[in-house]
């Protein structure tokens, strides 16, 4: 497809279970970002990939969160031992990086995670 896709669109899980969220960026976009948006709050940066390396993991809230990226394509965000406070919409975005000025990010539709 032409845009960023994410799966699943909705995920309900029990507290303590692990979940894996998937992002397919726009073809050719080398930069990939994960964000979290809790109800009524703004976007919270989690992690950034340039290619398959992650130079900035500063936003990951705890060691239960990890992310991988295969080449310059698919990324997965894994949350282990989910907690209720992990409930949020998880957004993935990708962008071209051209020199020093980043292009705008294109967001996927998000995965709504509900931890019961």
């Amino acid at each position, binding site marked *: 497809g032409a845009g960023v896709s994410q799966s699943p669109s909705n995920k309900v899980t029990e507290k303590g279970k692990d979940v894996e969220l998937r992002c397919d960026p726009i073809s050719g976009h080398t*930069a990939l970002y994960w964000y979290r948006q809790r109800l009524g709050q703004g976007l919270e940066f989690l992690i950034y990939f340039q290619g398959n390396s992650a130079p900035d993991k500063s936003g990951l809230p705890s060691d239960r969160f990890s992310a991988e990226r295969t080449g310059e394509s698919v990324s997965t965000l894994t949350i282990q031992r989910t907690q209720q406070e992990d409930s949020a919409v998880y957004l993935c975005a990708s962008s071209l990086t051209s020199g020093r000025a980043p292009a*705008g990010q294109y967001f*996927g539709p998000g995965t709504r995670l509900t931890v019961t």
Partner: protein
Amino acid sequence: DQQVKQNSPSLSVQEGRISILNCDYTNSMFDYFLWYKKYPAESPTFLISISSIKDKNEDGRFTVFLNKSAKHLSLHIVPSQPGDSAVYFCAASLGNYGQNFVFGPGTRLSVLP
């Protein structure tokens, strides 16, 4: 500690008038700023950006102004249209490749017909 602030959670404007959305930041090292628009139940979409070496960038009805000394930027929409009603997020980036975008909490704009 919010590095990017949008102090007005909501704004209402009459159709055809100017909408001015404001954003303040605290980190003088931010070197690139972006505005995103988000409709309910949809993901944010990129709107317009500005580099810290400029003070104005215009794209159709949308103009972003940057005042580095005041650490303030604003988005002007002229003329406002009902379809502009959405939540607008200001974002700032730090670093050579724009990683670690920091987003503000958003301002909900309502354009009244």
